[in-house]
């Protein structure tokens, strides 16, 4: 999934990769493109993890893992960092997700379970701020329920904010006319994908021009 997302990120793009699965996208960015990574704790031009022994506790990413800074990097405080997110300056962010709805609502910060300790971080800022919001998640829960839903049952992170969903089965655009499948893993039939999904989708490859 991470590799598939990386292919869709343009040269020159400013990108924020969320904690967890999205972080892996960094390992797959095409070497012929210059893509500038933003981490909301105050660094633009984030580089890969340092060599063992070179970790600097003052140089970390949003997941609090040690990182490096590339030539051309800059440091800034949190208000400036979130201005980049909230002011619409990021071309793209990649977030994890519990659920995405047909309308593009995202749930990714809180299971809503009574004993859960909630934590939100910058997820809500990224959801409303980035020009394109990509969500990367398994197509189904471990119990076999679709994570793509008619309406989110978990507490939402943002409304109508998701542009594209990358799952282990397909790539799906959220459009004004509904969910459109633009790519599927090799060997998967659209009808099978539809059966595993909680909501109707259309097949961009099979369908004619959008209505």
């Amino acid at each position, binding site marked *: 999934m991470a590799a598939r997302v990386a292919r869709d990120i343009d040269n020159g793009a400013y990108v924020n990769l*969320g*904690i*967890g*699965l999205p972080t892996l996208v960094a390992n797959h960015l095409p070497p012929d493109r210059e893509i500038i990574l933003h*981490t*909301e*704790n*105050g*660094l633009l031009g984030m580089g890969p993890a340092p060599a063992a022994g070179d*970790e*600097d*506790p*003052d*140089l*970390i990413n*949003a*997941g*609090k*893992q*040690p990182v490096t*800074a590339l030539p051309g990097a800059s*440091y*800034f*405080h*949190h*208000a400036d*960092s*979130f201005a980049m*997110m*909230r002011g619409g300056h990021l071309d793209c962010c990649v*977030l*994890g997700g519990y659920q995405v709805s047909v309308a593009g609502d995202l749930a*990714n*910060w*809180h299971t809503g379970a009574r*004993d859960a*300790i*909630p*934590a*939100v*971080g*910058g*997820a*809500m*800022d990224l959801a*409303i*701020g980035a020009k394109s919001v990509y969500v990367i998640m398994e197509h189904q829960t471990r119990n076999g329920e679709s994570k793509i839903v008619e309406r989110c049952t978990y*507490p*939402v*992170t*943002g*409304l109508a904010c998701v542009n594209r969903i990358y799952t282990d089965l397909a790539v799906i655009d959220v459009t004004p006319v509904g969910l459109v499948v633009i790519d599927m893993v090799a060997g998967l039939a659209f009808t099978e994908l539809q059966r595993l999904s909680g909501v109707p989708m259309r097949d961009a490859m099979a369908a004619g021009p959008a209505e």
Partner: protein
Amino acid sequence: MIDKTFACAADAVADIHDGATVMIGGFGTAGMPSELIDALIARGARELTIVNNNAGNGDTGVAALLKAKRVRKIICSFPRQVDSHVFDALYRAGEIELELVPQGNLAERIRATGAGIGAFYTRTGYGTLLAEGKETRMIDGRHYVLEHPIHADFALIKARYGDRWGNLVYRKTARNFGPLMAAAARCAIAQVHEIVALGELDPESVVTPGIFVRRVVEIPAPSGAAVAAPPVESHR
């Protein structure tokens, strides 16, 4: 002559009172003013309201302050972490109040205090649990939520260099909330790795001008300390 330098952390926090609201810099442990927090624990002030991005890591710093039962309420964006066991236990036991704030709202609400903004409209959080009960408004066809400043009596922050006027320069991503909290608190207290002579800091590169800082304490960085990689963050 102006001299904002203090001899030790204990002196610098000596007037932090019971019930005070204290902003504490840092994102996880990067930029966390651990020695000032230790001094605050030794000082003994209780019933504190703490403003920090997280709610403590491991058993030191903010976690130690929580563990000592000095904190009535915490305002933060990301309490749940792989090593937030001190907070987790207090929270589940109902012994600490949590105000969860989206990280950008946390930063902007702190900035608003320092900048004299009475309140502001933000898109972040609209339609979510974290905006419940808050005033909303449609501006240019988009939904916004009204957010208010977070005020504080004290700020404890950490920087790399400071001088006797209170000018501060930070280090890498340890900068994070420091400049915002310095401007927001009625009394900002900075621990710095090194106090330098006035004029040694490049005026183009000072990040926090001294007007925002009341007290500066030199706490050298641990020399040759092993730099342990912090634990990996849980999925957001």
